[in-house]
């Protein structure tokens, strides 16, 4: 491959990673507060459908994106209602919503299938886009890609460098302790469930408005919500590392397309499902790395040390265990 082909490849990686990146960041935010929003896969589809429909009707990709974000927050609100307010299992509610949101997307999106609608167009950033290598890879995209890039830094800075971020982490670690210190854990969890859902909605918009433009059944976004959920674990609940995972995944996807061209004997179906065994394998390694039976002082003896260090992040202690009013 020539230099310009490589640049094109990496530019494609950066653009293609945007939806999964936004979804993983949103879910990281939600899970940091101790709530699991399992409905990602359905939410992304529903948001993608709404983004396209609204963009088509208004001929404005921007309005489509906003509508998608609101839909994402709405589904997250349902998660909040059932788990935070009614005390039901977050996994159960999330799973039902995954299926329901998906069917709702197919149902309502039917009239919009296979239509041509507005898309986000590239807006190269002056000056920055002229930097060799980095310019074409990072700065010749549409503004949603830029927003995704900015969101990585924003999420990280928010979680680790502001008082709100500190309170967010506190609630995810131990809502009872946070309550004893004068916080309102349920309110904070609501806020971050909605914020996370907002970003997941944006991920849907990124699909239907430029990565896989248009709407259809299947749309092509099926399964990415689950990958995003796995990426949160892969990232050890750290936004930077989740982002790295999103780019790695996007890179592998693009590479897969190249491979498919090179080795035509392997059926296409194999490449389509390849991300999922990869996901299981990665989670296996992570589980091994986070296993507590390996004492910290013994870790240096292991050959996999470097790998283990990368994956040593820990889940927020109170993840998925909501605070019940009766438990105080």
């Amino acid at each position, binding site marked *: 491959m020539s230099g310009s082909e490589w640049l094109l490849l990496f530019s494609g990686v950066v653009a293609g990673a945007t939806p999964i990146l936004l979804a993983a960041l949103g879910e990281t935010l939600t899970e940091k507060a101790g709530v699991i929003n399992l409905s990602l896969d359905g939410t992304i589809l529903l948001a993608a459908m709404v983004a396209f429909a609204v963009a088509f009707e208004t001929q404005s990709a921007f309005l489509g994106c906003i509508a998608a974000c609101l839909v994402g927050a709405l589904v997250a609100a349902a998660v909040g209602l059932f788990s935070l307010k009614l005390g039901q299992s977050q996994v159960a509610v999330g799973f*039902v919503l995954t299926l329901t949101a998906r069917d709702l997307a197919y149902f309502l999106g039917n009239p919009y299938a296979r239509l041509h609608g507005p898309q986000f167009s590239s807006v190269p950033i002056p000056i920055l886009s002229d930097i060799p290598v980095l310019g074409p890879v990072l700065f010749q995209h549409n503004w949603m890609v830029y927003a995704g890039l900015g969101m990585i830094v924003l999420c990280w800075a928010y979680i680790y460098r502001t008082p709100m971020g500190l309170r967010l982490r506190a609630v995810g670690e131990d809502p009872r302790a946070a309550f004893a210190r004068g916080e309102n854990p349920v309110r904070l969890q609501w806020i971050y469930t909605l914020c996370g859902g907002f970003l997941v909605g944006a991920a849907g918009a990124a699909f239907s408005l430029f990565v896989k433009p248009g709407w259809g059944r299947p749309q092509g976004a099926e*399964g990415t919500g689950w990958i995003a959920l*796995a990426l949160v674990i892969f990232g050890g609940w750290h936004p930077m590392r989740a982002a790295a995972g999103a780019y790695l995944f996007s890179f592998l996807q693009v590479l897969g397309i190249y491979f498919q061209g090179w080795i035509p004997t392997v059926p296409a179906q194999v490449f389509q499902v390849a991300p999922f065994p990869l*996901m299981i394998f990665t989670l*296996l390694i992570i589980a091994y790395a986070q296993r507590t039976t390996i004492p910290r002082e013994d870790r240096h003896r292991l050959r996999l040390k470097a790998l283990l260090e990368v994956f040593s992040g820990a889940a927020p202690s109170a993840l998925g265990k909501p605070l019940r009013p009766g438990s105080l």
Partner: protein
Amino acid sequence: MAVFGFTTGILMLAGAPPMEAYGLLLKGSLGSGKKVGAVLTAWVPLTLCAVGLLYTFRIALWNIGVEGQMIMGAVFATAVLRWGVESRLPLFYLILAFPAAALGGGLWAMGAGLLKTKGGVHEIFAGLGLNFVAQGILLYLIFGPWKRPGVASMSGTAPFPPELWLSSVSGVRLSPEGVFLAAAALAVTVWMFRYSRLGLVFKAAGNNPTAVMLFGEKPGRYMILAMVLAGAFAGLAGGVQVAGVYHRLIPSISSNYGYLALLVVMLSNYRVALVPAVAFFFACLNVGGIQLPMVLKIDSSLAGVIQGAWVLAALAAVAWLRKEGRPEEAR
């Protein structure tokens, strides 16, 4: 009721006449004997999968991999039936296809169970990942080694000769053996949960795996066993689809019944007694929904929306009842 209001709103949003849609759903599912037969045809795999899930839910595992387990059951059954083509003992192969289907589903579920207990991978990710892998294997087989002579297509493998089919009620593809299998699965499960030690240990390990160890049982082993049982039931469902309904392997052999079964069990509030009725209701919605695109030009996924709304309503109702039942705790 809330579910009714919600779906009506959705229908209006889609620009379809709500009453007409409900009428179609009803007529399309219970309008004639033939329609009821079609509903029962869907009820069989749905019930089998749901019964299997009762075991995994009892031990607090989220067996999300039912789709894959059903697919592998279908694949194993197809493999056996392919041997049976041109054989002199078709009945032998037809019967053998069912243990093979249970084995296929069980092994596939065991994979997820081992990943959970030995590998520390959450069963949701393990099961889901294996679903996609099973789908990949299925497509590979249909388009590769098992392709129809001449053309590989989405219509599946070449149909089996009729001597390898389960019997069927005339006019519909409903096989009495399938209905019997589902009913037997229900009966066995009722007995297991009420009188067997296995059912008790599943419940105990689901509530507190640590303590079960002190009662002399290994929770990990029972988790795998529950997974295998669930997978075996799902595999049987796959076998019924192959031998009784489609008479060949098709890409959509699992027809989403695996995911739907999870909803069935949730709406039944994880109780075996309610499973057949809920499964019947869901089967009605699915079968009734088939006509929607043709008549009203709306998508058949309306059935899925209604089913989801019902489960959400049930979750809310259960939560509400719990609050009512224990007022002093709410304070």
